[in-house]
Structure formats: C-alpha cells, structure tokens
C-alpha cells in the first residue's frame, strides 16, 4: 500500500451493486451498503435505496454526491407534481424526471440510477438510467461496479412471473454474489419491496448471507476452533 498513492481525498463513490426486479405484483429493489473514498470504506452501512415518493424509490450508484443531489431534486419536483396532480405520481413520471436531470447534466454527473415503484396504472415497473441519461424500461435492471459480475447470473437465473419471495431471494443472492467478488461492494444487503399494499424494507446483515466459493463460516476466535476439535481417538 503506497501511502503516497492512496487518495484519501477522492470523492465519495459508491462502487456499488444495485438491482431492481419486477415480479408479479410489484418490484423488489436491492443494494449493497459500501461507500468508499478511494480505498477507504467511508460508510459500511449506507442506504442506497432512496425514497422519491410513497410509491417510487431509486437505487443510487456512482458518485455519492451526484446521486444524492439528483434524488433530492427529483423528490422536490415530484412533491410539487403530486400536489398539482392530486394523486400519487406514476413510476414513469418519476423516471423521466430523473432522466431529464441526468441527460441535461451529462457532462458533469457520474451516476447510474435504477428507478422502481408501483402505480395503479402500470403496476410494478423498473427503469434503468445509466450514464449519459438514456432511459430504458426493463423487467429487471442491474447497475454499479458489482453488476459486471451479475450479467451471466441473471441471464441464467431470471424468469418472468416470479412471486414476491422468489424475487427477493434472487435479489439478495445476486447482491451477495457481487459483494463476494467486487471490492467496491460490501456490507449488508438492503431490499425494498413495493407493491399495491405499500413498501417493505428488509435488512440482511453480512453474517446472514450465504457463503460462496472459498469463503469460510465466520468464527469468534481461533481458540474456539482449537478447543472444539479435540482429536477423536482412532478407532481401529
């Protein structure tokens, strides 16, 4: 670790893994919780799934500052829009507001976002808004640096018409796989489920996640291991 090259003043960046998945009835949004400043983990329990309205949330990736300011502006505009409209904003409107800001400031912003929610007209919808400000409606979306490791996984594991529990399990499994391989993702897995009934937030701490290749069951101490394995006498 060359201390001269460590950039402790680098902008806060959420390396991140973010996911949004539609299921039959709504959407499940998921994310990791690591925010890094260069190589230092500035926040190991961030909440990257941010509320825009009662029924629309956004997963943030890339520059922490950029994604926060975009969500703040969109929340502000959506609030006014909801008052004027007299009913909850649709997911499409929320996503297009995000796109507007992302596209018109494309030279300055470095944030990829996944907007997901439920409204009474279209049901559960997911919109991906990558760098540049393209808007693309998808049955599921992945983003952030950790998503590189998930393209193959989703190609194989995704299917249309999952139940709420299947969708959430898929999201948790996927974020956990990405955390295993992406240095910029880590911490806990947070999920937000949005459907006609409302919004449910779930929290999966690091120790409750499945273990993958070459990962070991965590222990309190070596001493426990040494004490536990008192050798059995050979049985000849």
């Amino acid at each position, binding site marked *: 670790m060359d201390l001269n090259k460590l950039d402790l003043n680098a902008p806060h960046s959420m390396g991140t893994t973010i996911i949004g998945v539609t299921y039959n009835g709504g959407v499940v949004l998921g994310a990791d919780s690591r925010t890094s400043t260069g190589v230092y983990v500035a926040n190991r329990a961030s909440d990257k799934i941010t509320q825009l309205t009662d029924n629309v949330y956004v997963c943030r990736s890339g520059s922490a500052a950029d994604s926060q300011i975009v969500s703040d502006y969109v929340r502000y505009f959506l609030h006014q829009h909801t008052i004027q409209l007299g009913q909850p904003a649709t997911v499409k409107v929320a996503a297009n507001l995000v796109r507007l800001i992302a*596209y018109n400031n494309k*030279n300055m912003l470095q944030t990829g976002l996944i907007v997901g929610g439920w409204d009474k007209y279209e049901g559960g919808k997911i919109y991906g808004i990558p760098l540049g*400000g*393209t808007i*693309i409606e*998808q049955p599921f979306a992945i983003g952030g640096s950790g998503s590189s490791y998930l393209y193959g996984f989703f190609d194989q594991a995704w299917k249309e018409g999952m139940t709420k529990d299947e969708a959430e399990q898929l999201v948790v499994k996927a974020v956990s796989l990405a955390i295993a391989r992406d240095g910029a993702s880590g911490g806990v897995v947070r999920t937000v489920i949005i459907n006609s009934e409302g919004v449910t937030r779930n929290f999966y701490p690091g120790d409750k996640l499945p273990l993958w290749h070459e990962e070991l069951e965590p222990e309190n101490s070596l001493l426990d291991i040494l004490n536990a394995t008192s050798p059995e006498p050979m049985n000849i």
Partner: protein
Amino acid sequence: MDSNQAKQHNLLGSEAASERTLYPYVTGSSVVAIKYKDGILMAADMGGSYGSTLRYKSVERVKPIGKHSILGASGEISDFQEILRSLDELILYDNMWDDGNSLGPKEVHSYLTRMMYNRRNKFNPLWNSLILGGVKNGQKYLGMVSMIGVNFEDNHVATGFGNHLARPILRDEWHENLSFEDGVKLLEKCMRVLLYRDRSAVNKLQIAKITEEGVTISQPYALKTFWGFAAFENPTVGAEGSW
C-alpha cells in the same frame, strides 16, 4: 491521483469547458436501409452497448416519425431519445396547423441535418448517425445525417460498421424495384455479415418497412448463422499452433 486533481480543477474552472459532449456511453450499432419497389426497408439490431459490454438487448433503434417517415439511429441512445422528443414536438406542431399538410421525409431529414450541424458548430454534438427514410406522394426518400452534419441521399445507406461491411454488398446486389421479399433477404444478408464481424452486434433485430400505406416495424427476431465450414472445425490442420 493526478487525474482526479485535474478533473476537480475543470469543474471549478469555467463552465464553458464542460459544455461539450465528450464521449458516448450507451451506444447502438449499425443501421442499414434500402429503397425497394414500394418504399423503404430499414434494419437495425436491438443492442445497446456500454463500452465493450453488451448491456441492453431490447433497444428499439428504428422508430416511426409522423405518417411518412422512419428514423433509425446508431450512436448514443440518450441523444437518440432526445432527438425523438424534438421530432415528436415538430410533428405535433405540424399536426396542430390542421391544414391537411404533413411533414414528409425530405422535410424531416432537413430538420435533422440542421439540428446536427448546429450542435456540431457549438462543439456539443448529438452523438448519432441517423438514417431517415420515407414515402410521400409516391416519392421514395432515403437519407443519412452524421453527428457532424454531413448529409446525403442515396438508394442504400448504412451507419457505422455497416458502411464498411454492408454497403459493398448493396453496391453489388441492389437494383431498382426490388420486391419486398428480395429486399428483406438482402438486408438480412447484410445484417448476418454484421453479426459475424461486428463486435457490438447482437442477434436480435427488427426490420421496418414504410410505404405509401404506412409503417410496419417487425417483431424482434434472430438470424440463423452458419459455422459448418471444415476449416472452422479444424483450423490448425497443417499449421499446428496457428490460429
């Protein structure tokens, strides 16, 4: 560390420095189009690449414009979406005149050319190559505009890699009054070559047709590919270690 500091200086410096599109992010690959007996046929795959990752595989890159035209685009998808919004406004205002007139492909092509060229002059281009085709009053029209505003019309046009791979095929095999079937087969021949030889091509495409009657954009479909050459199965026979 140095590049981070350089970026910070740029942001704090003059606003003018950041008012230019530097590079595209999500890009579409080639579009190929030909005139045929009844109108125009245009083909594009449905890929949206993010650098070298084939990230999006259901991007519609050919869209109808008004009653008389279709627009296909390669390059930055967000800029294409913005162009579609501008054209939507253009067509809307044209309809609102309610005077029986409607913008034809020549007019839309001209509008696009002005838009692209003026952005280029401000060093802030819309990062697309556009193909505009249509039929109005029996007149077929097929034109292209690049991101720097170069525009022209021809009997067959293509963007990106299509210029290098598809147009030679079209120069040999295109002729006046192609039937719909022959036109589709010709386009599919071009798209297959692009699939073999263009890294950013995906095997999911749409072919759009526009005639005096109207616009049809096909459902997405995939092309069969051929790999059964003996030399493919044993490429290094007689030259072990080669590729």
